[in-house]
């Protein structure tokens, strides 16, 4: 009986911890949808920064046009153009 109680407590603790982590990820990580696929904004920013050689902190996301701009320039990096290459990249 005692063993069963400890097992139950451990399972409860394990499930609640997992649930918390997932919720936190969803709140902190913005996403966008392109061609039916959901992408992480931060991951896309990071990959795009690696591909273009631009500092990721200079890339500003524009949700309406699904593009990034580079601060202080007339840059307009439409994600649609890069997504094929970004999908090949690993961080």
């Amino acid at each position, binding site marked *: 009986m005692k063993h069963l109680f400890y097992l139950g407590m451990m399972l409860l603790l394990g499930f609640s911890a997992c649930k918390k982590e997932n919720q936190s990820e969803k709140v902190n990580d913005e996403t966008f949808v392109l061609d039916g696929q959901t992408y992480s904004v931060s991951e896309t920013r990071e990959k795009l920064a*690696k591909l273009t*050689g*631009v500092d990721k902190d200079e890339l500003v996301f524009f949700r309406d046009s699904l593009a990034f701009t580079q601060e*202080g320039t*007339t*840059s307009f*990096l439409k994600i649609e153009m890069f997504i094929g290459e970004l999908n*090949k*990249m*690993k961080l």
Partner: protein
Amino acid sequence: MKHFWLFVFAFTSIISIAKAQNDDNGNLLYPYNFAISTPTSDGKIAFDSNQLGVGISGSFGIVLTELFKPHFQGVETSVQFVVGGQVKKEAKLTFFEEDFIVDGQMYLISKLKSFSLSISTNGIDMNSARLVIKYRFYYDSNWNLIPGITQSGWLPEIAFGKPWFTHNKQYSFVDTFNPPITISGPTDICTEGVYEIQHAGNVVIQNIDGTPATLTKTGATTYKLSRVSNNVGIVRLMATSNTGNTANFDVRVGLIKGRLIGPSFLTSNYHPNNEEEFEIQLDPGENFTITNFIASRSTCEIQQTGPYKFKVRIPGSWSFYPPNHNQDYLRITVLDQSGACVKGISKTIIIYPNQGGGGGELPDPGGPQNPNFGL
């Protein structure tokens, strides 16, 4: 089968190249994200025509087609400041295979590369000036990517006999020089005055006291005010620039520097108690001799009562103009026509109907009662 589709793809590419000739359409590679990091206005590169030149910096990258990727050896580019078809300045950049490699893997999109140019704008027709990207790359006929091209060499030279492709996106220029409007000329005029007005797109006048003058443009930056008859008053020159700057300049036309003191309103009552006295107060050192009076309505009577004093009477027969029958305006001008310049001073008085108080309204005599009265 694989070779068939490769041929179809290559054929489509060459058809596109043949159509495009000098632009990006259908090319095996082309620039992307041609961006400017120096000031722009409405997407145009800003320059100041009051300065001799402008420094321009920016960046762009190159996109490869999947077809060309295995053969890519490099692309030569040139950012050119072109005026009327002539290259005035250029900055050369070359993209190599390493510019497409991230973590050991080659991608179709290169890193962005920066350029900077210092261009002279002095004496240049900047309306026709453009900043463009030209590019060319080596092609080996053994690759068999473009049917019909059997010669190896630089594209587009070997295909079209022209040294460069031209990127579709280009920048034009906009002058952001925004100087303040300056107006110079006399503040007091007798018959006319000439004014120099710099950096104004439009100049009009506003008659803020009477209708003393008209405005004529006599040159690119010169204007003339011409007095209307012997009218006196203040006219305001109002200048507006194309960039939204404004400037005003008041001009006194035929006006003495003194003041005309007296009531600001009279009632239409020919009663002696309704005679109101006006006095001209001159500035020190100023001379003035009353030679005549001018009134905007003939119904009133004016009598000089001293060197600088006069009385005004409004008869009960005063006819109030529509639409407002309860008040009217009378403008009185006192002139000195004894000198070379006819000068004077004016005052506008409001006329109200007599409300029948006091001794009652006297009948309108129909004309001057006193031979000393009148205009």
